[in-house]
């Protein structure tokens, strides 16, 4: 076979060759770290072992079962993920519906709403820390001026208010991610179907329920799954705003794994934390996928 016809023919060998560079790159930066982390989770490798790997079997995972700090961080991460993703989805959907109804200025609205998403999270975290400051923060000033409270609330001082503060900052930052995804979905909804429902005498709710929502489902799935994965790995906001405090009340799993790796130099157990987190996340994604996908299939 001549070389030029090799490139043109639909052959398996050619396709594999095209795929190879990407596969090598992915192998280096994705597959290798995953394998190494998984293997490390079965070893003791830390300062106390002079950074020599000693086979541990399931010991690290047993430790995980009885590690109250891990349980607490899992609870914190779960709560953060559930509340922030729910709020972001709700607000994002309302905004997308409103923006989709606009005749003029849709592009402008989309651009303006995107701004928080483009800012670096660490900087946003510092800004929100100032907003929540008890002495000179603008939030307390507003609450007191409008008479909602009489005394300044030390937002970051209590575990619940600190969690609320972090969620608020996260919602502000990530609604702009959910919003355009859902807006794109809305723009895909065929107008004829809406008109058909109008002819049948259906109202706005019927339109949403029977036409908009089913068409939106794939976009809902994408935005929610992305947000859950991102929220579950939340690090920078917490690291800057509270450092996991007070009393570990906002310490997320990724913060704990980071500390175990970087500050305690315990790579074996740090890997175990990461592997456990990934497994939990994969399970969540799987359940969500099956659930949403079935509904989607049933609709059509």
């Amino acid at each position, binding site marked *: 076979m001549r070389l030029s016809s090799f490139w043109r023919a639909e052959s398996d060998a050619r396709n594999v060759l095209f795929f*190879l*560079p990407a596969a090598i790159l992915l192998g280096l930066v994705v597959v290798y770290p995953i394998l190494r982390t998984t293997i490390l989770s079965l070893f003791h490798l830390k*300062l*106390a072992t*002079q*950074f020599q790997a000693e086979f541990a079997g399931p010991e690290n995972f047993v430790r995980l079962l009885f590690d109250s*700090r891990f349980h607490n961080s899992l609870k914190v991460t779960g709560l953060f993920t559930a509340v922030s993703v729910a709020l972001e989805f709700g607000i994002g959907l309302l905004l997308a519906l409103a923006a989709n109804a606009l005749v003029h200025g849709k592009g402008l609205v989309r651009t303006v709403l995107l701004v928080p998403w483009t800012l670096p999270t660490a900087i946003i975290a510092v800004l929100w820390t100032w907003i929540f400051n*008890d*002495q000179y923060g603008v939030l307390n000033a507003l609450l007191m001026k409008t008479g909602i409270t009489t005394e*300044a609330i*030390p937002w*970051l*001082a*209590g*575990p619940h208010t600190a969690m609320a503060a972090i969620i608020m900052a996260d919602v502000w930052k990530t609604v702009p991610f959910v919003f355009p995804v859902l807006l794109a979905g809305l723009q895909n909804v065929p107008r004829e179907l809406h008109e058909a429902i109008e002819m049948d005498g259906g109202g706005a709710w019927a339109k949403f329920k029977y036409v908009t929502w089913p068409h939106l489902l794939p976009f809902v799935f994408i935005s929610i799954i992305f947000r859950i994965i991102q929220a579950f790995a939340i690090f920078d906001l917490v690291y800057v705003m*509270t*450092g*996991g*405090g*007070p*009393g*570990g*009340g906002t*310490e997320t799993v990724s913060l704990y794994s980071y*500390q175990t790796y*970087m*500050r*305690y*130099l*315990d790579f074996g157990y740090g890997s175990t934390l990461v592997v456990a987190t990934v497994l939990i996340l994969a399970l969540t994604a799987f359940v969500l996928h099956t659930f949403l996908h079935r509904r989607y299939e049933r609709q059509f």
Partner: protein
Amino acid sequence: MSATAFLALLLISLAGPSSVQDEFLTVLMEPDGTGVWRDLVFRFNREHPGPAVHLIEGPPATNTREDMYTTSFLSGGASYDIVYCDVIWIPKFVAAGWLLDLSDLISEQDRADYLPVELRAGSYQGRLYRMPAFTDAGVLYYRKDLVAHPPETFDELMQIALRLKTNDRWGLLWQGKQYEGLITVYLEVLWGHGGEWIDDESRKVLLGSPEAIRALEFLKATIGTVSPPAVTTYIEEDTRSIFQNGRAVFLRNWPYVWTLIQRRGGPMKDQISVVPMVHAPRHSSAATLGGWGFAISKFCPNPQRAWQFVQFLTRPEQLRAVQQRQGRIPSRRNLIPAEFLSILDSARMRPRIPEYAQASDILQRWLSAALTGQVTPEEALREAARETQLLLAS
């Protein structure tokens, strides 16, 4: 891009840095707000021919710089040749084998000139790994226009703070956020009650004592009474700005506050004085030792040059230059202001164990949980003691 070209690029990028790095050395420092480090590094390079030293300004959070060093050491590369080293990093960095032994390099004259506690703090198992540069110790500032006789005991401090507190002036400020600063504050109160955290030698955890509980109860009792409810979110600069605006009677902080207030003048200049931290009756005051010095990375390709640089920076004239512009207090005895000499001289070290970072995090979390009312002080210290004992036994 073809696969070959891509692979070639990849190989070049993997092989790149080593050949370049031998030609100069790097030192990672704090952000150089005053420009004094830039000036000193420039002078060193001009006056001492040889491979140049490059100054890298790191982030202000010391934890983050610790992590940057750790990442660089773990990769085995010499990203940073000279380490601007916090006193609490020594056991970990040395146990990991990342620092050069400087014991035989330091001169007898220097040994005699530095505060003994600083030399001990820079050593691990009898060998010196860090040249001291600047010393810190916790002190108590007070408004001498309001307080005629500064308090000596915790009870006196509480009474005076309560009496002088007004609607827009707090009684006492300290650092209560869940971070290393909270440990330094708690230790001063704990030591002032005659308690201890961890015994270095036996690796026993001593947090179960009544003194430990009393110390934590004292801190907790200040919140909302003489200290703002949000004191559990404050770090050094939060408390300094409130104090410097005249909105507090007492402040626990480090010596730099003194230098800043003296230098900037203003109305506060003549209204502030400084004393050692208070203590319980029949016990004595204690200050937590902090401080900075210079160490050399084991991966440094040119340790002679690095040592030349460290010697240059720790000479009295250089330390004095930093003192004048930054407010830090040098570790050399005859450069220390009279107000601080005895406090610094008797400052105490935090536990000197390789697992320090983890032990500190455990205590930070439980102290913070107790201070924010999630658990009682007894529960917090019992749990902290249990977790720490587990850590040190494993």
